């Protein structure tokens, strides 16, 4: 249990540094720390699939982010900070946070998963019948590629969309002269 608190505090500290540091590159590095913390957390929460995916995505995401920041002239934002606006947004966000904390009391306590209480939860069936229904020993694989494969089609499409979008945004010439109409 203690390990979760340590990791969460580590992640929060990394996030604060990433948000507040002036240097963009160090802020990107802190995001890396945050991501690896999340990956460890997933491992301790018994989600090895997610941990693997998180770690490889983290590496790629870091490369993409560093690519965006490195060898740019990293002018720091010096412009007059709107102090008043910052204070107001901090207050608003803090109020939402306090309201939100109450919300979590309605959830089952940490460590008692909801599906053990709900009688007709789908997850019960997944772990008891998953191997029989789909033949995959990895229940997560059986969920993402058989029970909820339609979601995964959507997921692959999202990735496809974003890659096509990125190639479109990064193409060299966007407009061309049109030949005379008709």
């Amino acid at each position, binding site marked *: 249990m203690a390990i979760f608190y340590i990791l969460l505090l580590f992640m929060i500290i990394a996030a604060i540094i990433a948000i507040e540091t002036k240097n963009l590159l160090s802020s990107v590095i802190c995001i890396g720390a945050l991501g690896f913390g999340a990956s460890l957390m997933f491992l301790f929460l018994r989600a090895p*699939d997610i941990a693997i995916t998180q770690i490889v995505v983290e590496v790629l995401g870091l490369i993409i982010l560093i690519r965006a920041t490195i060898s740019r002239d990293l002018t720091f934002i010096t412009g007059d900070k709107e102090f008043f606006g910052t204070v107001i947004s901090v207050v608003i966000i803090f109020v939402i946070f306090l309201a939100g904390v109450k919300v979590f009391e309605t959830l089952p306590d940490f460590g008692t998963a909801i599906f053990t209480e709900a009688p007709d939860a789908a997850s019960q069936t997944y772990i008891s019948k998953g191997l029989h229904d789909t033949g*995959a*020993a990895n229940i997560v694989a059986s969920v993402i*590629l058989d029970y909820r494969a339609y979601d*995964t*089609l959507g997921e*692959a499409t999202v990735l*496809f969309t974003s890659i096509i979008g990125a190639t479109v945004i990064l193409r060299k010439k966007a407009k061309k002269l049109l030949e005379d109409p008709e």
Partner: protein
Amino acid sequence: MKGMTIIVKTVSSWIKVLIVLFGIYIILFGHLTPGGGFAGGVILASSYLLLMLAFGREFVQKDLPLALDSKLDCLGALLFAMIAVLGLVLCDKIFFANFLYQKYLPGQPFNLISAGTIPFSNIAIGLKVGASLFLVIFLLSTFRRDTSA
């Protein structure tokens, strides 16, 4: 960009093989062990990324041209969609039916060939993810040079 020193080049050309093998392993055993198409695909992309860092962009271009890469991307996505549509055709008009497991190839649990279409979906996703992520990183890294030159 000419690439790095001879030591880095040699070592990375060996390691690349290992990374590709690891990626393929992660993809193929996705239904038995942690991992799967997505994680494996990212690992495949990172092997080519290593090559690009060590040898420079031109070398990778020869190995895996950009046009081919984007075709592979489309192909992976098409394959996955085809698996879904095949269910519509082969298995009583059910979109995304695991037709292999239910009808043709039940297989034994815990074997490589089990779980019907799941390994094939993993392969399609791995192909798609690997190709597309390499594509986007390549594009991002070449973008600035082209416009400034």
